[in-house]
């Protein structure tokens, strides 16, 4: 797993590459919750280069989304492959997280927040 962070108009955009599984989820959690504790309120996760996510990774997303909600922030995920999207649908995560098909849409929505 690789995480590349960049800033776009006050929004933290994190591009996730590779696998988010039980081995890499702890680092994913540390980085994501670390950014939130440093004051990041609006975060977009770009999953276009993400090959794999398991329930260990989904739990991290849920934790981060909850944390941001209590701080009146926002978490959006974008650009998932079809088969990753299927896992989001099966988990019920499509309904509880903001899912966008492209990054521009996610940025637009974050700007409104």
């Amino acid at each position, binding site marked *: 797993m690789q995480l590349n962070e960049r800033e776009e108009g006050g929004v933290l955009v994190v591009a996730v590459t590779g*696998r988010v*599984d*039980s*081995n890499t989820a702890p680092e994913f959690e540390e980085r994501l919750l670390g950014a939130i504790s440093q004051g990041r309120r609006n975060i977009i996760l770009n999953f276009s280069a993400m*090959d*794999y996510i*398991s*329930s*260990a990774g*989904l*739990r991290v997303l*849920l934790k981060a*989304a*909850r944390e941001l*909600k209590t701080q009146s922030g926002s978490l959006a995920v974008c650009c998932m492959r*079809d*088969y*990753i*999207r*299927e*896992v989001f649908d*099966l*988990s*019920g995560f499509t*309904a*509880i*997280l903001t899912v966008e*098909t492209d990054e521009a849409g996610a940025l637009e929505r974050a700007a409104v927040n």
Partner: protein
Amino acid sequence: MATHVAIVNDIAQMPRLHEAVESFGQEHGLSQAAIFEFGLALDELVTNIISYGYSGNGGHLIQVTLDMAGGDLLAVISDDGQPFDPTRAQQPDTGCNLESRCVGGLGIHLARNLVNSIDYARDGARNIVTLRKSPVARCESKCATTRKE
């Protein structure tokens, strides 16, 4: 020919299982989506065994066999952990909101939905879990009819 992989009950060994699934998938010409779904179902069940199947320390061997049977993908997981039948595990509530969403059981929920069948048997001191999956990904059959992007 069947693929056999044996791993010790340590999460750090999971990449070996993942690599075995990848090469099995390529050998049989499976799509990336089908390999993903099959691999994720196995990952969730084996991760669950490593995390909750054993009390105390010490190495245990978890054996996984991958094969084709009657055109289906077949995986057999054998472990000597506590008796655990994933087909009887409680279903999580996937319909609630962000605040109340409980995360327990999500892995097994995914595994159950990503394959066509899961069977469980206790054989002496071992749990034997058998997964069967059509070689066409859930996503491929569904996305083709419901999602045109």
